[in-house]
């Protein structure tokens, strides 16, 4: 009856009893798969042959000139499906197969993780059900259609705030009832152990490639790396390989309408410790411990919690947390599109917006790497509604 491994005091396994054995089984299977050469070979092969790894580290000539430092983008937008999410879903879907599970469920906010799970299910021949908040279904219509086209069933969630948090609740409720044959493909580094470690492991390939690519192109490590933070999977994915290096690591959260308004999703910047969805981490809650409603223009960042590993590394000071507002993100969305011909996801636009702010502190030889976690086609309609498309 040992307690589960933690990041500092963060993490743990706070779940209803019905899920405990499934989590222990998953922990064991993941450890075996990590040591299994055949499993690693099939994962590596599907990531290169099917998903399109490695993704480029693109030097941005125009942006670098404009901002006055060297700007690189790690191009997860070019991964199949259009976001970093597929690194994780292919890993977990292969693991589900390895465990003999015959059905996948997932939650999704922006729809990117739902699409990535639908893709993995389609290519590996496993049926997929995706829970998605009704509010997110309305604002991410393109991804809802993509999931349906890929053969997944999208189940609308009408409870609570009808966004990502409620989709996770509903996926957990499904899993409690279906745990024998179903694997829950959790989409970020949140949730009970072993999800935070497992998802980060599958996403760490981003930072492994980026480190090698930067050394190759520049002959040195970058000075600063930026990534947006929803649950934290693209951020820990690119940060992890650099934890022991002298590199500034900055996680950029959803500032929404401003931290002072209470309408945001910035759990590292403005949260307090608590338990949501199975782990102790920073989260947004009221004085009595009820989980707060959040807001972000980016559905994938509209979440009141954040992964326990990021919570710990922010707590120790190794990682810096920052936040940018909806309007700053919208401006960065247009900026990168015009400057580089790359339309970033609204989530990733948060990292770009903070990079624009930070550039003033950097010199012409300083190297900045931004994790471009996804492409923004899904957001064009929403951005147009908010006047973020013209000029």
């Amino acid at each position, binding site marked *: 009856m040992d307690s589960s491994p933690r990041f500092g005091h963060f993490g743990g396994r706070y*779940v209803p009893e019905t899920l405990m054995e499934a989590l222990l089984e998953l922990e064991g299977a993941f450890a075996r798969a990590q040591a299994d050469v055949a499993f690693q070979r099939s994962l590596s092969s599907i990531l290169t042959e099917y998903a399109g790894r490695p993704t480029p580290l693109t030097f941005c000539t125009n942006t670098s000139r404009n901002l006055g430092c060297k700007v690189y983008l790690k191009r997860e937008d070019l991964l199949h499906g259009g976001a970093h999410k597929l690194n994780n879903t292919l890993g977990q879907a292969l693991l589900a197969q390895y465990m003999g599970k015959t059905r996948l469920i997932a939650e999704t906010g922006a729809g990117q993780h739902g699409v990535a799970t639908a893709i993995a299910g389609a290519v590996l021949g496993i049926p997929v059900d995706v829970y998605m908040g009704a509010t997110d279904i309305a604002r991410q219509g393109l991804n809802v259609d993509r999931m349906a086209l890929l053969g997944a069933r999208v189940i609308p969630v009408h409870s609570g705030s009808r966004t990502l948090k409620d989709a996770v609740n509903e996926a957990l409720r499904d899993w409690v*009832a279906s745990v024998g044959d179903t694997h829950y493909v959790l989409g970020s580094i949140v949730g009970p152990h072993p999800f935070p470690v497992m998802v980060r492991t599958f996403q760490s390939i981003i930072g492994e490639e980026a480190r090698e690519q930067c050394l190759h192109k520049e002959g040195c490590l970058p000075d600063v790396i930026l990534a947006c933070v929803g649950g934290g999977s693209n951020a820990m994915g690119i940060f992890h390989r650099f934890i022991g290096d002298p590199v500034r690591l900055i996680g950029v959260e959803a500032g929404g309408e401003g931290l002072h308004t209470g309408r945001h999703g910035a759990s590292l910047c403005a949260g307090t410790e608590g338990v949501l969805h199975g782990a102790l981490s920073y989260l947004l809650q009221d004085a009595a411990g009820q989980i707060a409603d959040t807001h972000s223009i980016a559905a994938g960042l509209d979440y009141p919690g954040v992964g326990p590993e990021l919570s710990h590394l922010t707590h120790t000071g190794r990682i810096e947390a920052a936040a940018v507002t909806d309007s700053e993100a919208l401006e960065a969305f247009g900026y990168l599109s015009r400057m580089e011909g790359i339309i970033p996801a609204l989530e990733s636009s948060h990292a770009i917006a903070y990079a624009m702010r930070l550039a003033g502190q950097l010199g012409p030889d300083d190297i900045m790497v931004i994790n471009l976690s996804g492409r923004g086609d899904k957001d064009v309609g929403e951005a147009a509604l908010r006047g973020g498309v013209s000029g």
Partner: protein
Amino acid sequence: MNRIDRWFLEHAAPAFTGFTVAGDPDPEASVRVARTLVDAGVDILELGMPFSDPVADGPVIQRADQRALAAGTTPDAVFAIARALRADAGVPIVLLTYCNLVLNRGIGQFYRDAREAGIDGVLIVDMPVEESDGVREAARAAGIAPIFLVAPTTSAARQDGIIARASGFLYLVSVLGVTGTRNRVAEETLAFIRQMRSRTALPLAVGFGISEPEHVASCCEAGADAVIVGSAIVAIIERHLGDEEEMMAALSAYIATMRAATGEAPR
């Protein structure tokens, strides 16, 4: 002695345990609901502390949590409801809550407040025994029974670990799934009760999905020391939201029928 332990010591027949969300439909009415349950024959009262994100609960209890929260039910209000009930009833009271509400208050403070409110047992639905060292210590210090769930999926090794750490009673989850009513009690559930009966002397309370007198009778026959009915009670409250008199009459009638099904046969 804790009121839960004393109840099982003094009674030969199984306990009928009724659940309601504290604060549903609002804090004052909720006290009247709980009194009605007790007057109608509930042997052990379970109070749910409403939480914004109750992942172990189905739609009926989710909606009750939402009603209670919308009516301003804070954890303070829940303790006040328990205190009001304790003032005029000797029934054992078990509090069902979620981890974040306990941590937010501070574990020690939560258990001291629970004791002061007259609560006898606390079940934190999303806290497995592995994470429970701190709360078990606080519970012991406050004289409150730490109640734990055992699920049909729980392995024999973990069953032993839970049995060694629980007191009051073991809460057997009768189905794979969240709270909510089910049509029948499956044969596997009865086998699960019999299997657990052979492993421990702790009282066994069976819950999740029980809504009909036949469910109660078959669980008791299989060796349950208590049956727990939640969603079916909450659904009656929901059905009669506009009319409190009707609500109380329907609750009393339902509890009487269900209570009778426990039988008076010795356990």
